[in-house]
């Protein structure tokens, strides 16, 4: 498979997953606000975590003075100027899909194209204005549909593996961000003790873990929740579960034989997998949850970087057999479509 194609498939999956997670986050925060409304809580206290999770506080304050629910939701959902918005994630997913249309099934393509047509349409905007829950649910459903169609129409070859890599790594990353912000905010909310369990419940809801968690644990114990979302390999959105699949997928891609000479992505993913498997939640809390998650995110980034180095840049670095010395070739932009790449458009239209 072309390196660029692998990169595009990987990012297509990441952006879909990102849009899904953002939608669920907004939806659950909104629900939470409805539950807590009677207690006269500060709007800002509820919505700031969203911006912290997506890392967009600065971008937001450049546009808005105060943190208001409506503005935050609109900023995260549909603002074209916000590179991390749901709108732009869907656009980027779809642009990447467009570059690999020959590799994915027509149904996968139609699903993403349909989603992008919806979020860009007047119907999409008015759904968001009038009843934003319906908007988020539509994005969520489409994302599930994407997963389902991809699952049932993609041959289990490289396309599938890169798709799963993108999904798993993005999901693990989003989950770790969610746990981080939720716990941080929850800790400094002493004035309203009754809102704390609400916050944790919202965290579970925002990763569709409410019922699954309830079935296993009777109490909303924050420690148990952190353990469940971080370390439990049975829950499909937990960090540990994502890393297990990440590692397995990388093994498939690299065709790993012996434990020695293991390619960097497999090694890094495998090491993280066993760390998560052999760590207890008490150890995590003793280390400091925030610090632990920081380190976790760095390691996820390292895995992402190793994937890029191995599968996308690799071809440039390998000399051919029976070949003379490598001549240096001018490096050109490589890889997937991202939200900020306007100059591509001009170059490609020049002819």
């Amino acid at each position, binding site marked *: *498979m*072309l*390196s*660029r*194609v*692998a990169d595009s498939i990987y990012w297509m999956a990441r952006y879909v997953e990102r849009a899904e997670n953002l939608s669920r986050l907004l939806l659950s925060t909104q629900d939470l606000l409805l539950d807590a409304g009677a207690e006269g809580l500060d709007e800002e206290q509820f919505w700031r975590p969203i911006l912290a999770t997506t890392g967009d506080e600065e971008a937001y304050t450049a546009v808005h003075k105060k943190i208001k629910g409506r503005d935050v939701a609109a900023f995260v959902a549909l603002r074209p100027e916000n590179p991390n918005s749901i709108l732009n994630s869907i656009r980027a997913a779809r*642009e990447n899909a*467009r*570059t690999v*249309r*020959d590799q994915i099934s*027509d149904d996968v*393509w*139609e699903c993403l*194209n*349909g989603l992008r*047509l919806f979020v860009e349409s007047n119907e999409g905007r008015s759904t968001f204005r009038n009843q934003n829950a319906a908007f988020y649910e539509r994005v969520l459903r489409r994302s599930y549909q994407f997963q389902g169609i991809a699952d049932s129409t993609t041959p289990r070859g*490289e396309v599938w593996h890169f798709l799963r890599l993108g999904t798993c790594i993005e999901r693990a990353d989003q989950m770790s961000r969610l746990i981080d912000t939720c716990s941080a905010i929850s800790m400094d909310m002493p004035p309203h003790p009754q809102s704390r369990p609400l916050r944790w419940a919202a965290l579970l809801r925002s990763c569709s873990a409410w019922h699954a968690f309830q079935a296993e644990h009777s109490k909303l114990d924050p420690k148990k929740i952190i353990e469940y979302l971080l370390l439990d390999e049975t829950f499909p959105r937990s960090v540990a579960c994502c890393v297990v699949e990440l590692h397995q997928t990388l093994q498939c*891609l690299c065709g790993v034989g012996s434990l020695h000479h293991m390619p960097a992505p497999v090694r890094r993913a495998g090491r993280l997998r066993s760390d998560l498997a052999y760590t207890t939640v008490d150890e995590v809390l003793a280390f400091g949850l925030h610090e632990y998650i920081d380190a976790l995110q760095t390691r996820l980034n390292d895995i992402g970087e190793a994937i890029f180095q191995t*599968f*996308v840049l*690799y*071809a*440039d670095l*390998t000399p*051919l057999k029976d*070949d*003379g010395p490598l001549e240096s*070739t*001018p490096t*050109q*932009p*490589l890889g997937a*479509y991202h939200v900020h790449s306007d100059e*591509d*458009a001009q*170059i*490609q*239209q*020049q*002819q």
Partner: protein
Amino acid sequence: MSSLFNDYQPGKFFDEVFSAPGAARSHYEALLSNVGSLTPGDYSSLQKAVDAAFLKMGVTFTVYGDDQGTERIFPFDLMPRIIPQREWERVEAGLIQRITALNLFLNDIYHGQKILTDKAVPEELVLSASHYRPEFKGVKVPHGIYIHICGTDLVRDDKGEYFVLEDNGRCPSGASYMLENRHAMKRAFPGLLQSLPVRPVDTYGTMLRETLEHLAPKGVLDPTVVVLTPGIYNSAYFEHCYLAKQMGVPIVEGRDLIMRNDRVFMRTTKGLEQVHVIYRRIDDDFLDPLVFRKDSLLGVPGIINSYRKGHVALANSIGTGVADDKAVYALVPKMIEYYLDQEPILPNVKTYLGIKKKECAYILDNLEKLVVKAVNESGGYGMLMGPSASKKERSDFADRIKANPRNYIAQPVLQLSRHPVFVDDHFEGRHIDLRPYVLYGDRVRVVPGGLTRVALRKGSLVVNSSQGGGSKDTWVLWDECSDKAASTQLAA
């Protein structure tokens, strides 16, 4: 006669469907009895369903000059254009004759230039064509073929006679719309397609791949073929991708390719993989910054050198644009005579050359009767429609012609044939042309039909998509009697 066509007026033009008001040509009868029985409401909901499907599938082209890079669907009119077998046979023979002569011509001018020394065509005219590539003289190309994929534009005049308007020997586009249009028709009128002997077009992908594989360097048994695109922002990206998918080959951008030892490789997840044949949808100018435009980021530095050495094949070859020069087009009948010793089966449109003094004077004296075209423009740009132009536009054009007569040609205004097109809730006549696709591999093959383009604006004679054009499916019908013969031919 059915209700939908009751009020249809063929007008003073050659109408493809009606020889006179209410009098349908025989090859349209079955279609009319079927379509005509629909109500306007049924018909327009069918049309809307097809439009929605095109948008959903992303069967679009990009409109430039719009900062969002807006994608639009290429408007599609449901009512198909029908060509009876006997008429088609003549068109097919004419196209084969033409691509054969054009390839002999290109091979000649990039080698011995016999046609020029024999003075069969004027040397200064050919060598002054801006797409003539002197740096390519003497380069041997696989099988001596230059134009492998040709999309000739045909029009019919007010008597129904076919003429060649342009040859398009560089990167003709539109084949994907031909295929998608047929697909849409199968959905909209399944019964009709089953009951009529319509010749299939969906073998195009296979034929194209065979044509390309034929070019592989000697000794390569299982060649790697790729489609080279400028990228997703190019207006024809949909088509590039679609054709790659139809052929089952990778679609690559310049940045995916890399040179090693004068050979072309693509960067894959498992290392470098050699490429043998490139169906390139990038113009000569942008293909190799070492040879052509230095500022091009779309191409592959060194690819031309590899092509020269025979390590990779390109389709179409370099320098075919000389045949697309509208002044060189005027010489094609002479090429047919010179190389094949035949009369052209499909005539050219009468063309006056600016470079010839007498003809130039005629052009300048008769601007209000002529269509003037710049020799290297296409897509409906750089032309003057004399009869409808203002005085000022005509005098501006006259100045341009005087300043650079080589750059202009003129043709009488053809009253293109018309075809009923559904407008709001009824049918009206609109002018059409036809772009069949000709493939030159181990033999020349013509896809039965092609892309019928429609000038959707009332009265307009310009069918280009950039100028408000749309398209129709094109049905070539087997004759009932030749039915059997044709199917055995296909099986063989």
